[in-house]
């Protein structure tokens, strides 16, 4: 097998094995209901993780995602409460803001040559702070259009539902895969992850690509915020704390190298599903504390980082012998 597919194959194998184990213990877990819920419950995280995958593939990091999600939720709730705007108009508005916010961070990272970690950390505080400025309390969304959207779903055989937001996540993943592997922009993202200096010498438009990557991540964080707002029917400035870290975990478990340049958007989907599966298992069990999710994800993450390290070591050794 081509070595670049090894981490992805490992992720898929872990997911299949874990799911099989779950079914052995709780045969009920093999139902379209569980799968439908898995998609719905993780929709906002999945959408944000697609953006994160691009950022990490390019060798960067985006810590602002959770805060942007919270800001988006509060913004939608407050605007809907205080104006007569239709939710769709508000969505377009907030997506524009989130995209601009990401683009701005990308521009700072590129033009001021600042580490993405610091810039997006500042972005995280800024977005979270803006959410607090809009409202300190949780603001419910009561617009009838929300109910319409929530009632919209595709019924799977066996009673499961692909909800609007679950389906949206799958669409975003499909688009992400297409962009990563079938567009020049996608190739440029991988090129940046392989080495910015080399990419520049090969004529990759580094500035444009960097800005576009963070703008794309911002856009998806905004979309994730909309989904989160639909999911919870409220906007709260303390919501989605640490989602960026969950997204990073999903990306790494999905087989993408944290150093950039290698990985697959599709792997992130599996990463999300593995994390959701652990959560579902704990729900089924009923007696386990939900903190076990964190512990298991921590262990899994550690295992994957070790695997990547070993993989890098092997490929380096191979190159030396060549």
């Amino acid at each position, binding site marked *: 097998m*081509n*070595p*670049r597919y090894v981490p992805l194959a490992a992720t898929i194998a872990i997911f299949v094995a874990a799911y099989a184990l779950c079914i052995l213990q709780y045969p009920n877990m093999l139902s379209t209901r569980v799968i439908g819920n898995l998609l719905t419950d993780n929709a906002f995280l999945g959408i944000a993780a697609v953006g994160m995958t691009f950022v990490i593939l390019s060798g960067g990091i985006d810590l602002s995602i959770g805060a942007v999600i919270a800001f988006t939720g509060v913004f939608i709730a407050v605007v809907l409460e205080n104006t007569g705007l239709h939710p769709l108009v508000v969505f377009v508005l907030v997506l524009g803001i989130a995209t601009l916010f990401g683009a701005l961070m990308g521009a700072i990272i590129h033009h001021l040559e600042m580490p993405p970690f610091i810039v997006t950390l500042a972005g995280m505080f800024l977005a979270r702070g803006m959410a607090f400025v809009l409202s300190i309390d949780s603001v419910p969304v009561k617009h009838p259009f929300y109910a319409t959207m929530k009632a919209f779903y595709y019924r799977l055989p066996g009673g499961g539902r692909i909800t609007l937001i679950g389906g949206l996540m799958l669409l975003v993943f499909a688009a992400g895969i*297409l962009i990563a*592997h*079938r*567009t*020049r922009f*996608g*190739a*440029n993202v*991988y*090129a940046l*992850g*392989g*080495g910015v*200096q*080399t*990419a*520049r*010498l*090969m*004529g*990759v*438009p580094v500035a444009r690509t960097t800005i576009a990557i963070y703008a794309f991540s911002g856009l998806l964080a905004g979309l994730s915020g909309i989904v989160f707002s639909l999911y919870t029917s409220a906007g709260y400035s303390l919501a989605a704390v640490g989602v960026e870290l969950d997204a990073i975990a999903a990306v790494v478990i999905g087989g993408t190298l944290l150093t950039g*340049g*290698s990985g697959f958007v599709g792997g992130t989907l599996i990463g999300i599903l593995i994390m959701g599966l652990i959560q579902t298992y704990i729900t089924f069990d009923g007696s386990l504390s939900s903190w076990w999710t964190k512990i298991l994800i921590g262990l899994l993450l550690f295992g994957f980082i070790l695997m990547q390290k070993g993989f890098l070591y092997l*490929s380096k050794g*191979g*190159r030396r012998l*060549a």
Partner: protein
Amino acid sequence: MPGNILGSEDIILSATGIDKVFPGAKALNKVNFQLGRGEVHALLGENGAGKSTLVKCITGAYRRDGGRLVLDGVDIDPRDTFEAQRLGIGTVYQEVNLLPNLTVAENLFLGRQPRRFGLVDARAMNRRAETLLAGYDLDIDVKAELSSCSVAVQQVVAIARAVDLSGKVLILDEPTASLDAHEVEMLFAVVRRLKTQGLGIVFITHFLEQVYAICDRITVLRNGQLVGTREAAALPRRELIAMMLGRELGDEIKTVAKAETEEGPVRYRFSGYGRRGHIAPFDLEVRKGEVVGIAGLLGSGRTETAEILFGAEKADSGSAEIEGKPVELTSPRAAIRHRLGFCPEDRKVDGIVGDLSVRENIALALQARRGWARPIPRAEQERLADQYIKALDIRTTDREKPIRLLSGGNQQKAILARWLATNPEFLILDEPTRGIDVGAHAEIIRLIENLCEQGMSLIVISSELDELVAYSHRVIVLRDRTHVSELVGEAVTTAHIVEAIAAGEKQGASR
């Protein structure tokens, strides 16, 4: 100007009066450079002469501060490499060339992938990559990651990309620095083919034999100024070196026979030393004041030998003795404690710490030996740095300059200074003269001879056999990760080394 004999219609690229100023230094001063169609033109000069700067001004990596650049009769002013590429100027670099994490085909077509309905058509891209590489006699899996290819193949892929992209001017910036003789020949075949296609090729290298092997004309720069452009055939090597250095080089390489040190006591004895998968067990004895040369082709186990001696790779068989006492050299730390020093081959990766200053880089190994709990006083560090900057003639504006801003030869000297500062008794040098200019070459060779006269034991790995023969008392020849032959005294000649390497080439050739 001598050598400026081409008619204007034969000139593809003409640079006149190019100026480039960096803070604190004038890197180029009114440099003229003319490149003809179907010409291979060498651009030579010592480190820091301005070759790289001139090339970067042509490829758009730098913006020039003055002068004219005319490509194919049209004034150009590329803002970046991307624009230069589109105009017709392609570049292949020695170190950073392509992206190891992308496939061969992706590397060839990055930024101009064939598209269908707005999406990249991977199948068409791979097909076109195969066709393109077939023109270079290269039959490889274009879907494989570039990092799985050998350096020579990567270099040809880089050339294929550059030529396919630009097609007028090809700049080769030290493309042969990490290739062995066979691979260089393969590269030259490609260059000759491109030459007949009417491309103008600029060739930058430190290997003068290669210049004479392939170049039509030679342009020499020194201290940012043009020294002259000459026909290669009409320029004797001595005169060329004089142009580059601005002085006659006393004796380029000392060739007098070395004093025998056979009688001296053995100071270092390694018996049955080896590591599976790296280097077969070998016996090695080194005397005081002796230089042992290590020769062999790329990948024959030269660097592996050095790493195992220094403890960078742990030996899994055999034993080491220093002056009759058994010692454990299981880590570089232990080796440093026993007064060993090691200047690795790839100074960018293993040697320098680019962002630290020259002073800090020089003090590094000494500090490591003292232990981090006992910092070297600043004044002492400064004294050390100044001493070696002077002693080794390290050219830097001041000792606090980040070392990555220095040229290759000066970085190499700084690394040497780092180990000399620890007062080693046994120094391992892996390719000390690779990628540095002729002047620095001679200086480093002189340094090696001085060190050995002072009683230091040295192991020197080098692909430059003439050099190796000049300073080694003994030469160990490696092949297929095994020590196959040891030449002593009178027997140390280039011919004997080549013979010893070639003796097993029938098996080795398949590598």
